[in-house]
């Protein structure tokens, strides 16, 4: 069975600083990987996804992620954080189970942005 680990429960950065959120996955086949963001009381918004091809993936809001098969990682990065980026970030791996691709989420990383 697939699993996702987000080692950092909570990260605090200053506005304008760079950001990297870590994600490690376990999956027997080629993974489908996702990053979602969730603001308080809201649903999940897709930031970016990796299915195949270029291992550096660009997403919305200036985020990017790099798939590293050798490290089983899919870390999320942003060169300069904005106060509006404060939210919870979930990494997920998708695996076909029956009639749909089932997402297994990590436990999330809460991002605080200091002014």
């Amino acid at each position, binding site marked *: 069975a697939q699993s996702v680990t987000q080692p950092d429960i909570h990260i605090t950065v200053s506005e304008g600083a760079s950001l990297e959120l870590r994600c490690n996955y376990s999956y027997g086949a080629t993974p489908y990987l996702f990053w979602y963001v969730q603001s308080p009381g809201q*649903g*999940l918004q897709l930031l970016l996804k990796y299915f195949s091809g270029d291992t550096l993936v660009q997403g919305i809001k200036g985020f990017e992620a790099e798939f590293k098969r050798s490290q089983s990682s899919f870390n999320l990065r942003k060169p300069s954080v904005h106060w509006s980026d404060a939210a919870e970030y979930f990494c997920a791996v998708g695996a*076909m189970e029956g009639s749909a*691709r089932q*997402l297994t989420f990590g436990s999330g990383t809460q991002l605080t942005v200091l002014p």
Partner: protein
Amino acid sequence: DAMVIQNPRYQVTQFGKPVTLSCSQTLNHNVMYWYQQKSSQAPKLLFHYYDKDFNNEADTPDNFQSRRPNTSFCFLDIRSPGLGDAAMYLCATSRDAADTQYFGPGTRLTVL
């Protein structure tokens, strides 16, 4: 334009009183999902519909049921809510089985 809509956004029910949560979509997607997300936890899949084909997760309690009367709508019924069922319930859709899932804003359920 809203694509995955959930109503109500906040629902309060009493212990043991049945409650229904609603999800609708304007994307004409084939697959609809229901997730449960408890406080400070990751979303957990309860079940999904591929068209009219219902697929239940093995560990989803019998207390949770779902209906999909047409392509656009999907309902989550909780027959006898317990205090442990208080959570955010997220609906998601995908065009097809292998496609990206798009989430609604969620319904926050409180059980008194």
